[in-house]
Each structure stands twice: as C-alpha cells, then as structure tokens.
C-alpha cells in the first residue's frame, strides 16, 4: 500500500563566506552562515590556497555534522555578494529532497581517464533519483581534462549530466588541492553525485567571438598545435591577431599568457557554436601553441576574442539556460564555475557579472574562478575553457 505524502519534500541551499585569515574562525564564520538548518547533506567548499587548508577543511567538515563535503582550491572565489580573493565560500545543500554521495579518483596524472572513472564509481548514489548531476572538481594542472570527463562518462552514461571545474592556485600554476570530507588531496578528482526530486539545470556560455576565417589544424600532438593551414601555429596565431611584437619577443610567460588568456581557439561544433580551447602557452622555438585540452588533427578552428560586453552577455545566457532547464521551478541556489580568463577581460567590471548572476534568480550564489570548466549535458564534449558554467538547483 502506498500513501501520498501531504507535504512536498523540503530542500534548501544556503551560502556563507569569510575573509578571516584564520582558518578556524573562517570556517566558523562561513559554515555557520551556510548551515542554516540542521539537516545539511552536502557542503561545497571553495577556498583560496592562501589558507592553511589542512586546518580549514576539517574545521568546515566538522561543522557539517555528518554532511558530506567536496571542494577545491581556487583562483578567486564567487559568492552572492560578489567576487573575492583570499577568502572562502561554503554552499550547503540540505533537506530530505537531496541525496548525496561523494568520492574521489587518485593519481590523475598517471591515468586521467581511470581517475575520472574511479571518482564517478566511488560517488554512486544509493538509490536512483529522478534528477541527478555529477559534480567533478579536478586538478587543473594535471593535463588533458577531457579524458577525466570521458572516464566519468564511461561510468555514469549520458543520462547523468556532468558539471564542475578545475581547481586553481591563485594563478601560481604550481599545485592545486581537492577536498573530500575532512581530507585535502592532490593530483585527484573529487566527485559529488547530487540526486534531487526537483530539476537540476546546467547552462554553458563563453562569450568569445570569431576573428576572421576558419583554419584547419594540419598538425597537432595531443594538446599541442603544431601547424595551422600548414604554417607554424604560433606565427599564424600572432599574425592573425595582430599581436604586438613584445608578445613574441618576451619569452617570459607573463606577456604571452595575458595575451593568450583573452584569445582562445574555437573548435567547430555541430550546433554552430564553438568549443573553446584556451591557449596555455607557446614554444617560441618550435613555433607551436599548447592548449589546456586536446586539439584534434584535422579540426576546423577559429581564432577568438572577447570584450566586456560579450562576456557579460554570455553570463546572462548561461544563467538563463540553467534556469530554463528547471522547467519553471524556483531556483534555490546557483553554483558558478567561471574561467579565470573571463575575469581578466572584465577587469573592474567583474562585480557586475556576479551581480547579474544573483539578480536573475534571486537565490544565493557560490562558485570560483577556475582553470577549466566541466559541463556535459549533451553528447560527449564536456570539458570547456574560458567558459562560464552555471548549475542551478530547484
């Protein structure tokens, strides 16, 4: 015999932040604000690696009273009241309407795909839920992240959307950390499977525009682009974008990285929308480009650029798409995985981006500036660069 429940299942999302440099006090402040109710199921922690993470993470986890925890170090934090640095942000998902399982895949650099698969396997929900998503937080410096996504996809299949981002280290590019419950991991992927009895929406936009005509990748090796239209890739890249001379002359990474940060490559897609590949660096002797993800041989690519207007337009579109996917349900909260390069374009307008996110849904926002974004709702391509990914829960 079944009995209809008189009340709808209760779900809640809350966000807390702290810029207190002391890890225990910061944990107290942020978690205290996020834990609005007793029955938290999942805590998501994004923290600057300026903190003593080994103290911070267990402190936040302990506050959760049995709630699972995933999180990572960042290149800047995002919360309802704006972007920040050297701070922490905690999002709490609570109530019987949510089911959560967490897990991790280790030794990412040894085998990216296996680590992705292991994370997905260990973060298996105990029972099927009507709406699910698998959130992945990865070591952003471990190389071809698409393989991590494929590994997770091979376990959960196409019915479960994938979402998340690559951990950062405030642009030091040395090492990143992932958090699982009370532990601080490295070279890992942490995963949280989120099941809900209400819809979960995901939106993805980048906000870059094509520059000039497309080119064919005539030579590539994994993430390295050797030639475009049969010419050295770096020469083509700098010429076509009219890069100032010092970009090539200055072989230190800074000038080139800053320039490349706002000039990604766009891979041709079926829908007509590009798949963005951030240019990570250049080999000035080999005259090649290196990207954060694989660029297949034979691919059709565009050079891309963006400005404040196009980036903010993408913010609206991504949030809109995530909310649309809720099928009319009221959003309880948003998680934002925003590429660090977009912040570079926006500069001082960055506050405007977060304000827009918060205002479109009138719900709390938590997120971080990433070294790469994950969003797979269709097909297989789930790893993005220089893109904004928004997760909305109802």
């Amino acid at each position, binding site marked *: 015999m079944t009995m209809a429940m008189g009340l709808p299942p209760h779900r809640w999302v809350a966000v807390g932040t702290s810029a207190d440099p002391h890890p225990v006090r910061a944990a107290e402040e942020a978690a205290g604000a996020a834990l609005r109710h007793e029955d938290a199921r999942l805590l998501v922690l994004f923290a600057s690696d300026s903190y003593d993470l080994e103290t911070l993470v267990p402190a936040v986890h302990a506050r959760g009273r049995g709630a699972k925890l995933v999180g990572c170090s960042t290149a800047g934090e995002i919360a309802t009241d704006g972007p920040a640095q050297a701070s922490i942000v905690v999002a709490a998902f609570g109530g019987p309407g949510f089911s959560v399982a967490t897990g991790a895949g280790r030794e990412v650099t040894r085998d990216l795909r296996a680590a992705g*698969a292991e994370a997905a*396997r260990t973060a298996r929900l105990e029972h*099927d839920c009507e709406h699910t998503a698998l959130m992945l937080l990865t070591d952003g410096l471990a190389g071809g992240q698409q393989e991590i996504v*494929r590994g997770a*996809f*091979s*376990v*959960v*299949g*196409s*019915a*479960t959307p994938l979402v998340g981002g690559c951990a950062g280290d405030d642009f030091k590019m040395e090492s990143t950390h992932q958090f699982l419950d009370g532990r601080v991991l490295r070279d890992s992927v942490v995963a949280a499977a989120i099941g809900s009895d209400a819809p979960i929406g995901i939106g993805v936009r980048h906000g870059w525009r094509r520059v000039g*005509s*497309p*080119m*064919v990748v005539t030579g590539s090796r994994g993430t390295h682009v050797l030639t475009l*239209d049969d010419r050295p890739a770096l020469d083509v890249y700098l010429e076509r974008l009219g890069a100032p001379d010092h970009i090539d002359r200055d072989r230190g990474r800074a000038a080139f990285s800053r320039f490349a940060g706002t000039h990604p490559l766009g891979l*041709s897609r*079926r*829908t007509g929308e590009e798949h963005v590949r951030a240019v990570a660096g250049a080999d000035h002797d080999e005259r090649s480009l290196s990207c954060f993800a694989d660029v*297949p*041989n*034979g*691919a*059709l690519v565009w050079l891309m650029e963006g400005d404040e207007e196009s980036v903010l337009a993408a913010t609206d579109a991504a949030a809109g798409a995530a909310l649309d996917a809720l099928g009319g349900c009221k959003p309880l909260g948003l998680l934002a995985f925003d590429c660090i390069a977009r912040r570079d374009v926006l500069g001082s307008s960055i506050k405007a981006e977060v304000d827009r996110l918060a205002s479109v849904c009138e719900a709390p926002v938590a997120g971080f500036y990433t070294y790469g974004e994950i969003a797979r709702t*269709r*097909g*297989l*391509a789930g790893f993005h660069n220089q893109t904004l990914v928004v997760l909305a829960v109802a």
Partner: protein
Amino acid sequence: MVQSGGSWASQQLAEFAATVAEFDTRHAAQQGALERAAEALDADFAAIVGHGEGVVASIGFPAGAVPAAELRAAAGEIGRTHVDLPGRRPRFSVTITNLENPEMGRLILGRDIEEPFGEEERNLIRGMARVFSLALRTLATLDELRERQALLERLSRIQQSISRGSDLQVTLDAIVAGAAELMAEPVAAMRLLHRERPGYTRIASAVGVPEPLLESIRDGRIGSGAGGLAIAQDELVVIESYGDHPESLAPMSAHALQAAMSAPVRERGEVVGALTVASYTQGRRFTASEREALLAFAETASLALTDARMVANAMHDSVHDALTGLANRVLFMDRVNHALESARRRPRSIAVLFLDLDNFKLVNDSMGHSVGDDLLMGVADRLRHALKTGDTVARFGGDEFAVLVEDVRSEADATKVAERILGSFARPFALRGRELFVTASIGIAVSDLGVQDGEALVRNADAAMYRAKSRGRAGYELFDELMRARVLQRLEIESELHRALARDELELAYQPVVSLTDGKVLGAEALVRWNHPERGLLSPGHFIPIAEEVGLIVPIGEWVLRTACREAVMWGHERLDELPLSVAVNLSARQVSNPRVVQTVRNALEMTGLQPQLLELEITESALIEEADRPRDNLHALRELGVKLVLDDFGTGYSSLTYLKRFALDGLKIDRSFTDGLGVDPDDTAIVSAVTGMAKGLGLAVTAEGVETEAQRSELRRLGCRRAQGYHFGRPMPAREFRRVIGALPSRAA
C-alpha cells in the same frame, strides 16, 4: 583556406579519420571511434553491435548497465529511426549504419528524440562507418601480424632450447604446450611411432588430457585418430566434427571432443609422428593461419627430433674413441670417479691399469699408419675379450690404453687382470697377411684411502707403466710406496719450478765446443741449471721433463733462448777481430711442436741482434718422428730464419737417416755413449766412423759429445770428426768463466 559554409560534415569526417588512425588495437579503435562519433554528433549513446556477438562496444550507458537486448533488436532493423531504452526518458532518435561487412557489425548512434538525425548527419555517419571499417581492416591485418610475431617468437624460443641441447622430452613438451597455448585450446599431443609395436603409435607428450583418459589412448593404431591419420596420410588432417568421424578415438568422442587438427612430424624426411591440437568448443573451425601455425610447430618438432638424434650421436662420439669404439679419456675418467665414489661407500677398491704398446712407433713407421691403426683395433678387441663386462677399457690416444677394474679386494685381483691381458698378447696379431708379435707394458694403481681422485689414480698407473717399460717392457708394475714418493717429489718440483721462474733461480752454463783441427773454441752449448735454494744446483734432467709435462717448458725455453743469444752477442763484442762464436740451445720435442716456437726464436734474435747462423738449435730424434704437421712445419720455418738445426744424441734412438734428409739438418751430435767406447770398443769405433763418413757425404757438421780423454780426442780426429765437446775441453761453466777462457783454450788444448 577552408570555407566555413557547408564544410562542417567533411571537417568532422577529417577529424574522425585522423582520430581513428591513431589507435593500434581493435578494442581501442572501436571505443575511440564511438567517442569521436558521439562527440561530433552530440549523441547520447553509441554502440557497435556485432554480427551474432551482441554489443561489442558502447558508450553513453552506465557501467554494467548496457541495454544489450534493446540495442541488438534495434540493430536488426537498418531503417529504424527511434528506440526505447529501459529506465530512460522518452525515446531516442537513432541512426543505424552497416559497417563494411556483416562480420564487423552495425553502428548505432542515439540522441534526444527532439533532435532527429538530418540527412547531412546520416551521410557523415556513413562516411565515418566507412573510415572506421577501413581502420578495422588495417588493424585486423596488424593483429594477424602480431599473431604471426607471437608464433615466431615462440618457435624461436623452442629453437633456442633445442640448440642449447635441452633434453628431447623437454623440447617436445614445450612444442606441445606451445601449440595448445597459441591456438587457445586445452588439448594437444604428440604421437611418435611405437618402438616395439609395428603399426602403432604412442603419445610422447600431451597437455590437457587427464591421466586415465591418456592411458586409454596412449597407444594407437596408425590411421586411427587425427594423429594416426596424419601419420598414415603424411599430411595435415583437420576433423571439425570429431564425434561423427569414422576414425575418431572412442574415448575422446565420449569425452565430448569436438574438433581436432594434426600435422605430420618427420625425422630426416620420414614420417615418424604427428602433432595434434584438439578442441571441446562446439563448431570450432581451424583458420588458415592456425593450420599454418600447426604445420610450423610440427616442422619445429621434426627439427628437434632430427637434432636430438644428432646430439645423441655427438654425445656418443664425444666420449668414445673414433678408431676403436672404446671409451675415450673423458668417459673413462667419469667412470673412474664414479667407481671411486661408490667404492668409498662399500668399502672396496678399484684398480686402474695403464697400458702402452712396446715399440708401436716402429710399427707405424715401418709398416705405415693404416697397419698401425689395424693393430690398435686388434689390441682393443683383445682387451675387450680379456676383461669382464663390468670393466671399462678406454683408449687415451696413440698406443695408450686404460682399464678400470671395479670391486678389487686385493692387489692380486688387479695383477691377475694384468696377467690375463698380457696373456692375450701371446698370440700374434694378423695384420695384412703378416703376423706380428706385439708386447705391452702395464702399470697398475689400486685405489686406497690415500687416493683422492681419479686423475691421481691414472697418473699413478701411468708412472707404474713407465717403470715397467724401464724394466724391460712386456710386463707389469704395481704403483708402490717408492713410486709414490717419487710422484710426490715431482709434484713438489712442479710447484717449486713455478717459483723458480719468478725468482730468477734458473741460470745458464756454457760448455765449450772446440775444433779438433786447430783446438780453437768454436762456440758453446748452453745448458740450463736450476740453482735450487735447498737442493743446490740441479741439472736439466731433474726438472726439464717435469717442466714439459706441466707446460712450464715454454716460458723456460723463452728465457734460455733469450739469455743464450744475449750472451753470444757479448762474446762477439769482446772478440771483434776473431771468428764469431756460435751458441747451441736445446729444444725439446714439446717445444718444437709448440705453435709459438718460431716466434720465440725470432724474438730472441731480434731482441739481442744475434746473427741467425750463430744460433744452433739442438733437437732430439723424438721431435722428428712426431707424425703431426706442426713440428715439421715449425722446423721448416726455423730453418728459414737462418738458424742451424742440429740433431742431438745421434745413435740413441732410431737413428734413421731419412730424418736427416727430410729436414735438411745442418749437423748432428754423436752421443757420449759412443764416444766412451772409442779406442776400446771396436763396434763404437765402427759406428762413429760410419756416422762421420755418412755425415760428410750429406754435408753435415758432426760434433762428438762427452770427450773426456786425449785418446778419445785423437781417435775422433783420426776418424775425421772436426768438432767436439766434453770435460777434456771444458766442463759447463758460468757465463763469466766462459768469457775468460775464450781465447785461452787453444794453447792448453793444442
């Protein structure tokens, strides 16, 4: 430059082709192709459904939850546009495409029902299917090459084990196991023709056949079973419906064997067996490459069998004397050591008899080698008959034989055997129509607690044999305590001799050689001495034979040559206005046959600057009658250096004039035993007279040795001898003393 409009599909196909080309295994290519296709088309799932095999690869489904039945059903309908999957939201749009041939299967892609596949996309997918099929075909070829490589590697390992001389059974087992493993079948066996039952075969090696079953089929008729058929027909036999075959083996049919394949195994071209693999898998078909592989394994087995027979022969050859078929030294020593070991446990003794024919060289020289060989074979026969079956008789080379007698209770047991052997020599040997009486000398050594190893026992018997020879031949001697003492002394000398070289204990003495015409010194014979720290000055007879035995004669010889030549050069410097003096150095038979002797002499001449004609090398007759080529070649080469070759101790050996001619010698030395009798024994006078006359005729310089009296000197002069040495002219003396007497001697001797 590529235009963006309308080129999406072709660009995707180019990307797909580039991606798929990078995979090097079939599995990786399947998985990679599905991922790439799904990525390009935003598909929610993709699968390859094989022909009769179900889903061979898929993506987009949770691990372990692939809806195989639904996918198989969908793949059956090529024109289908949608599919329902269990537990998934609405239905999916699908597109189903044939790969190149039915065996490769079909490709299915599915995506949201709201987004059906358009015509351009279907074209793209067909293009991808074609590219993918091509890649699979290439990979299949690659897989075949890998299989072939695996086969070759396995065969090469077996070949290596054969050439390492592994046991035949080990090799056959490796071949049988290798064949089973390569074809991924549990059962393999090798049959060989039955040794005792004509018309039958026997399993020599098998895997995967349980013991009772193996026993029931171990012996089989030729023509029965796959192996029996392969032997009968001498060709590859394939039975793919084993139970129905008229010649199938009943126990194997009852055991549900489904298929078998057998290839003939040959030895030197003749069929001697068959290698079979068999399968319990229903419907098992053997592919062309499997048939080839089995033939290759059978070929290897053939080589192994042929090799094994050759190895067995070689094993026999390596321990047996080719001429007589008796054991050789290697086998004999092995038996002696084994016998010693078991004798120690029992405890009993063993005896070794060392036998040497008397005057065998004479037979060889006078009657020819082939007669000599016949004699050796005849001796071998006599020895075989004179001994009990348990005893071992061996030929050590030349005319040396050895006998091992086990279970000896007393010396009398051993001497009885020696007497029996000597008794068997009483009858003459019939050789080429002639009768020849031959005698032998035997040395006997009986093991006792003092003997540690077989080598010592044989050495003792050898020493006893020499004693028998020296006591008049045609008899036997037992190795006794006195001989043991001598042997021990020799061993001691041997070790001291090593030390002597290192510590400069050797020195040369020079005995003048003078002209009987005018009394002037013509040169000297250099004689090596050992200034032994405890025993005093030892003459060459005390240590040179031992040095020869233990191989020290070579370094000693080098030192003697170098020192003598250097000394002779000094004489020249001190007597600039007089005739240069020559120096004579003895070369033993062993030195003459040493491959380095020519180089050694050349080095000595070059290092010292001595003119070659001032060096006389004294060689013994035994060096000349060696049959081998090496000493002969060495003597010729020495002559070409310009040194003089002189025959030492002429008259003591066979004194064959043919040697003098054959080797174009420069001179000879009359042994002291003839000089002794000069003027006393008319025979000796006659001999010396004849030798001198003959040498004059051959243009040889004659030197008389051992001249001790004035009477001998004048007699030699009378007989026409021009050169002499002996105490009458001067004893062997140290180098410094010899230098002093050079030039002083004529006045004393005139």
